[in-house]
């Protein structure tokens, strides 16, 4: 696999860091939207190497973290239904719903299976025609095309025992919601490169113009992130607010056109609740009318399940960049990866989990 060594080179990283240091004359706060970027920043210690004045605010771009609690509860209810085979990506299994997670339901006898592609779930449905097979379709624009393709194939092949529990959300409305928040400190965005590889960059200039913020499309390897930060700092220092692409090897301006056409066919825009943030209008997808019969929420009548968050958990403020994970009073006490109150502590891309996993040493030293 190319692009790992080439984009992790310490010598080139040092050069980019020197350029960032040289360009920075005052404090700036920028948000990396994607949880994968958060994880990479913390894991590689990039935040420790930036100028003191550069603050990375961790955004709401972890698909696990923003899936609302009531959607997890709906998944748990479906998974616990006799005869159902419930399929999910691995890191959804430990996300806590109301007192349980999918692992717990599985241990009580439910047929919960980890799959690595939604098409695997469709295969399971075809192999088990007497069972209802449900795939938990969560995530941003990145994971949506594969889910759309699966539903498209299910309809084309007449696989009636397959359905999709849909909880897809969209990045641009979240950026707008963050910028509209009264206490917003974000001065620039590193846009999620993999989202843009699907959707292209055409939606971002309007946001950059409306909110006067630079938006830099950024990848995930250390050098990708450093280049994204460098381009952002250069714009902030010069007072511009353009959309630039620091991830051109994966992101053409038009994105992935066949994938976008598939998304337009299978999904339609809807209001979505984001865990810890609340409802953001027109910020997600649901199955379009042509494919609505594959909607697990309707098939299993779980749409009426509504759940409140733990009052202790401040994941919403973390997701919006208002506080850092360790500024939550439950962090490391009532809330750990072993006993997570919120999804930000569960997901491998969650900011709280990243801080717990990789930053405990610094926090000990701060407290010493």
């Amino acid at each position, binding site marked *: *696999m190319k692009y*790992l*060594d080439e984009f992790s080179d*310490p010598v080139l*990283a*040092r050069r980019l860091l020197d350029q960032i240091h040289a360009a920075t004359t005052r404090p700036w706060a920028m948000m990396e939207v994607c949880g*994968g970027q958060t994880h990479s920043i913390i*894991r*590689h*210690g*990039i*935040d*420790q*190497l930036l100028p003191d004045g550069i603050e990375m605010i961790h955004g709401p771009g972890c*698909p*696990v973290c923003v899936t609302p609690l009531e959607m997890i509860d709906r998944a748990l209810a479906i998974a616990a239904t006799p005869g159902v085979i419930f399929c999910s*990506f*691995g*890191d*959804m*299994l*430990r996300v806590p719903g109301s007192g349980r997670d999918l*692992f*717990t339901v*599985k*241990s*009580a006898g439910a047929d919960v299976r*980890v*799959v*690595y*592609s939604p098409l*695997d779930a469709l295969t399971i449905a075809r192999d088990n025609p007497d069972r209802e097979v449900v795939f938990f379709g*969560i*995530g*941003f624009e990145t*994971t949506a095309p594969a889910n759309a393709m699966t539903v498209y194939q299910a309809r084309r092949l007449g696989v009636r025992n397959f359905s999709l529990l849909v909880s897809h959300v969209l990045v641009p409305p979240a950026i707008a919601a963050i910028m509209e928040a009264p206490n917003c400190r974000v001065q620039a965005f590193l846009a999620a490169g*993999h989202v843009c590889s699907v959707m292209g960059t055409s939606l971002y200039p309007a946001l950059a113009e409306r909110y006067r913020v630079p938006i830099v499309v950024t990848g995930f390897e*250390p050098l990708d992130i450093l280049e994204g930060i460098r381009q952002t700092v250069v714009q902030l220092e010069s007072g511009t607010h353009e959309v630039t692409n620091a991830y051109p090897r994966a992101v053409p301006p038009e994105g992935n056109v066949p994938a976008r056409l598939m998304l337009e066919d299978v999904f339609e825009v809807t209001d979505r609740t984001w865990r810890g943030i609340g409802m953001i209008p027109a910020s997600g997808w649901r199955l379009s009318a042509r494919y609505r019969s594959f909607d697990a929420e309707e098939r299993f009548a779980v749409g009426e399940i509504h759940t409140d968050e733990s009052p202790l958990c401040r994941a919403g403020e973390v997701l919006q960049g208002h506080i850092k994970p*360790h*500024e939550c*009073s439950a*962090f*490391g*006490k*009532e809330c*750990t*990866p*072993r*006993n997570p109150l919120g999804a930000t502590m569960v997901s*491998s*891309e969650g900011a709280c989990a990243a801080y717990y*996993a*990789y*930053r*405990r*040493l610094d*926090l*000990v030293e*701060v*407290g010493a």
Partner: protein
Amino acid sequence: MTTVDFSNWTCPVPLRDTPNVVMGHGGGGAMSAELVEQIFLPAFGGSVADLADSAVVTAGGARLAFSTDSYVVKPMFFPGGSIGDLAVNGTVNDLAMSGATPLYLSSAFILQEGTDLAVVGRIAQAMGLAAAAASVRLVTGDTKVVDSASGDGVFVTTAGIGLVPPGVEIGPRRARPGDVVLVSGDIGVHGVAVMSCREGLSFGTSVLSDTAPLAGLVAAMLAAGEVHVLRDPTRGGVAASLNEIARAAGVGVSLVERDLPVPPAVRDACSLLGLDPLQVANEGKLIAIVPPSAAPAVLDAMRAHPLGAGAQVIGTCVAEHPGMVVAQTALGGNRVISLPIGEQLPRIC
């Protein structure tokens, strides 16, 4: 800035808030440790301090290493080996990590009704060949059959005994600040080999399991110099083993990430799945913690042995951050290497 007290970070809920066993209890991480510490040790009268890959007991004037392990791997046959190879080599290695010369193994089979006898035969053949290669004898055993709804192919349990030479004292509490941390070769290989052919995940890779008996390598190391700790980083990987050592000895472990021998195919697979190579299982590697004066000779002895040719110094034990493992990243920052919690979960995107 809010300060956080990390001195006593344990889950306040015993065994989490689940009344049932979940898969994470078998993952070799924090949940496995809690199961042992909160249910088995109180019932058996043991203590955490005694926990190692094998127990060293005295019988008839001899010091014996004694160990047992169960094998439930899926798929049962994978690139580079099988459940039969693991069942022998795994227990041989647990004995070797006490500095013992492994001698005798038992084998117990739980067979699911309907399993192809040819499969059972292949597993038995593999065990026989592995035992011969490890210079141990399979001397006793047992077989049970469960109905087709109660099992999953073949489960194998082996127990083993070995002789610990006089003067050899190896255990996790012996790590000291200043000690050097060595690994015998590429890490994460076995876990990636098994994952590469797991149902629904099969991906093309040249990686073969590293399953191998390590007693010969250990003997060569002990002949070269003093060794404080040996660990066989299987479930939970290098991360779990080093965290356990750090906690047992009350030392910190400081790693240099760029010195970790992670082969490109393992790194690529882990990058694809969102896994950390440090948390991926190994079946033919060891971690050694040795005093600095002995490190060069022990490292040379490792590299002179076929199963230690890729041995590397990966870090040191330190007085700072006791009980924690911290790695210096390739870019110059640092990160904590955590004990895995339960199952490794591939991430969504």
